[in-house]
């Protein structure tokens, strides 16, 4: 299936990104394993539902699992449910969040981003992730995906031309693209 843009992650950041892309009249697919929770909101799918009502294709309860890249660009992603149906687009937004939403996974030594294998800014070794003092700033909270100065995601130190990260998944010091820039890049494809 082909779209103009695919947003991976249906939490707050992903829904905001989707809304902006819909504002620009793009055909958008929102892959949403996540729910957005607000105060006094007993309807956890509300934001996702609003995006669907505005015309986005929302893959509810699905999760991107792998991507195909070529010549520094993302061509397509696959999901758990659509494992033999590549989802293609010109523009990809990574908004899968940090640990709870599984945007970042870890083993004893490493923290990694599972869909694209994006570069993650962190200190190897689990003992460095926490401060013994509970109320001190916790290092793991500042870890996240690295981007270039224009907010494009880095993989193996190289900028990916059509992949931007937004929201919680970003490392504390990583640059976030501004939307005018993203739409400019998109217009030039």
């Amino acid at each position, binding site marked *: *299936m082909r779209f103009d843009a695919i947003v991976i992650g249906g939490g707050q950041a992903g829904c905001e990104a989707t809304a902006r892309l819909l504002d620009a009249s793009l055909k958008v697919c929102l892959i949403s*394993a*996540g*729910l957005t*929770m607000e105060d006094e909101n*007993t309807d*956890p*799918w509300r934001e996702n*539902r609003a995006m*669907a009502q505005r015309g986005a*294709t929302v*893959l*509810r*309860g*699905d999760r991107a699992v792998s991507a195909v890249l070529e010549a520094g660009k993302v061509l397509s992603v696959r*999901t*758990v*449910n*659509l*494992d*033999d*149906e590549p989802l293609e687009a010109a523009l990809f937004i990574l908004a899968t969040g940090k640990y*709870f*939403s*599984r945007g970042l*996974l870890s*083993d004893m030594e490493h923290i990694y981003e599972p869909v694209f294998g994006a570069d993650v800014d962190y200190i190897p070794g689990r003992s460095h992730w926490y401060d013994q003092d509970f109320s001190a700033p916790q290092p793991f909270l500042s870890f996240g995906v690295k981007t270039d100065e224009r907010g494009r995601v880095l993989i193996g130190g190289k900028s990916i031309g059509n992949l931007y990260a937004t929201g919680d998944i970003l490392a504390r010091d990583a640059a976030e693209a501004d939307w005018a820039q993203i739409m400019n890049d998109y217009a030039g494809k």
Partner: protein
Amino acid sequence: MQENNISAGNLEQCLKCNLCTLVCPMMAVNAHYPGPKKAGPDGERYRLKDPQYYDYALKYCLNCKRCEVACPSGVMVGDIIQAARLRYAGHNLRDWALANTDLVGSLASPFAPVVNGVLGLKPVKSLMHAFMGVDSHRTFPSYSARRFTSWMRRQDQGGFDKFVSFFHGCYVNYNYPQLGKDLVRLVNAAGYGVHLLEKEKCCGVALMSNSMGAQARRQGEINLASMRKAIAAGEDILTVSSTCTFTMRDEYPHVLALENAEVRPHLMLLSKWLYQKMESGEVSLRFRRDLHLKIAYHTSCHMQKLGWRNFTLELLRKIPGVELVEMDQQCCGIAGTFGFKKENYAYSQAIGGRLFDEIGAARVALGAQSDPGFVVCTECETCKWQIEMSTGVPVMNPVSILAMALE
């Protein structure tokens, strides 16, 4: 992900966030149901310690899998509940009769006109309500005098060099052969012949919901053996029902421990198969321009879990005269045999209420208040019974709509 996670259904990954509880349709209407978190991963810890902790309120689970769709941690909440019911719950004669769709269907269909007439009689309904616990509001889907398979065996499919196998399911075979005929027409138009599987049994979903796991497993083994043969001959296996499909793809391995890895990629709804064949350019179908239908699409629970609704929606959009509204994804409340049981009827209708309202709203949105061309489209036959009974709007499987639209 934890590397050495050996818990069944991923239960150790549950963080107690309760998102599953929030989206559970039963939880919203029934205070006796403990909710998916408590019935699933929480309860499982106790049941593993001592089976006496099994809570009979688990019978209220609809097996809609909405808890799994919502779970951010990949816990197979619904599977854990389903497996616990298979292990610990019992069943009565009514449950046995509702669950044995194959047996009851093959007994009923030779006498279809009589059976249909008798089952529709008010006194019979009252007796079934009182003595069997089948709710008197419900009408059984009528049986067909002629089975789909006996029609299919007389169809000449010799003129093709490519084939698919068709898992028709109980509903097509005993109740509504026309849906199977529609699939054959579409697949033939796409240049493929249709074979029946060597042997086909009910997928077992009703057996599983009614705690008859051993029989469900036996039937599953028979189905998988036939499917392996078809796949070895180069055939995909097509279906029309989202529930049969989901059961055989996902519940066979997860709940019945039936290994199906080599079957799974070849087992799919017609809409996925046809979409992919048309997109790759291998198949091109021409649709009539004079078919005017206003369609409200309802995503059945198992269709939501499969995540395949866009295949259907994209195909429907290819029909020139179709106007389509995608309704929000919510449960109709019947959940197969669940809604037929008299103790569940009120819950069933309370859950479905939101969907029925939304169908009314879709009708208005399409400007079809008095339009005979307004239909609800869904892949699930029990949703069809529920929606037709509760709203009076005709419900069609997308396969029938696509077949109707063929030039």
